[in-house]
């Protein structure tokens, strides 16, 4: 049963006086993997934030989506003075708090076992990135909106994340992400090149 998670009809996105994107039409259903591609400054992040509902003032047109959304932006939303466990248990976007076993399983999937209770500030940038991505390995929302999820990840990390994407899509979820390099997700991956929707 494929339900529509996100629907966009003739969407225009502005950045102050400049029109970034125009006339965008898109429907994202369960099980789809969508990559937003395009050069720097074409408006990938702005579009993703529009999908998330964080950008509304300069977005015009019809945009409707399901309420069950997980957004991950450039900033990892982690507090340095807390441990990964505390960060993930009291995550501001998480309406329900994961149990310890789910937490350990998620952190293990990103081979962060042993760091659950260390101070996040003392972890390396790559490790902090993995803690931020651990949310994807917890029971989470159906529609994922991920901004550059593969940055600061080593090869192993990228592969783990790609598998998770496929798994999530098979479970009836959907992933929309921005990325510079081509993601190895096979033919299921649709790539939306925003260059063709560039404003005047």
């Amino acid at each position, binding site marked *: 049963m494929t339900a529509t998670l996100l629907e966009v009809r003739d969407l225009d996105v502005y950045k102050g006086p400049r029109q970034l994107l125009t006339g965008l039409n898109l429907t994202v259903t369960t099980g789809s993997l969508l990559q937003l591609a395009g050069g720097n400054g074409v408006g990938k992040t702005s579009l993703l934030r529009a999908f998330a*509902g*964080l950008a*509304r*003032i300069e977005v015009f047109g019809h945009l409707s989506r399901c309420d069950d959304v997980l957004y991950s932006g*450039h900033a990892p939303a982690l*507090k340095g003075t*807390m441990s990964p466990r505390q960060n993930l248990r009291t995550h*501001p976007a998480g309406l*329900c708090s994961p149990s310890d076993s789910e937490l350990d399983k998620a952190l293990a999937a990103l081979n962060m076992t042993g760091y659950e209770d260390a101070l996040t500030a003392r972890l390396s940038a790559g490790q902090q990135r993995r803690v931020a991505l651990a949310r994807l390995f917890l*029971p989470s929302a159906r529609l994922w909106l991920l901004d550059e999820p593969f940055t600061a990840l080593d090869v192993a990390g990228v592969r783990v994340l790609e598998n998770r994407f496929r798994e999530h899509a098979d479970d009836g979820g959907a992933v929309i992400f921005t990325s510079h390099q081509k993601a190895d997700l096979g033919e299921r991956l649709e790539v939306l090149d925003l260059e063709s929707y560039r404003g005047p």
Partner: protein
Amino acid sequence: MAPERADASLAHYCIRQTGRHLLLLVRSPGEIVNPLLFFLLVIILFPLGLGPDPEMLSALAPGIVWVVALLANVMLCMRLFADDFADGSLEQLAMANIPLAVAVLPQLLASWLASGFLLSLVSPLFGLMLGLPLSVAPILMASLLMGTLIMLLLGAVGAALTVGIQRGGMLLSLLILPLYVPVLIVGTRSLTEAVGGGDPAVALALLGAGVTGGLVLSPVAIAAGLRVSLEL
């Protein structure tokens, strides 16, 4: 996908977020101690500036205590959302599947507990320095308890609107000081009535009205302000 959980309710979320912010405040004590230190230091300035004469000081004490509490609140509001905005937590707060106006309340409660609440507990000691008799202490504490909460709620609106602006501190005080005028007037009035043997009930009642009105109305403005700042 995410199975409906027993603790997925709003109340659990708010309790968890309040705990989170209290933990953060405890872990970085500067956030709590600064307003209190500021309050003590600035109170000490007035006798140095105006002279130690107890009669004159106790006559001016209500105004001094309240103006200093007001300034401490402005300082607090400058840092209110700054860290969360910088590290992306504010974004995630807006992405929580509940109204932002409700989601922002735990942080305000935690900030108030760590600042206004403590300030009003400590204020009788500072009041003594200004010649405020201990008999007035309960009124002083009650009025500051409510006043600091109203000022935090109003200040948070200004903070939400200026969090995205570099060096937004000066602008913040310009935005919220006019809104603080009624709180200052009513708060000082409650103290002067108490010191003068009059009846502070009217002023305290008005402060109570301010708290309830503030709790209902300002979260909506704060949420709208945060959404604007998140657009940057």
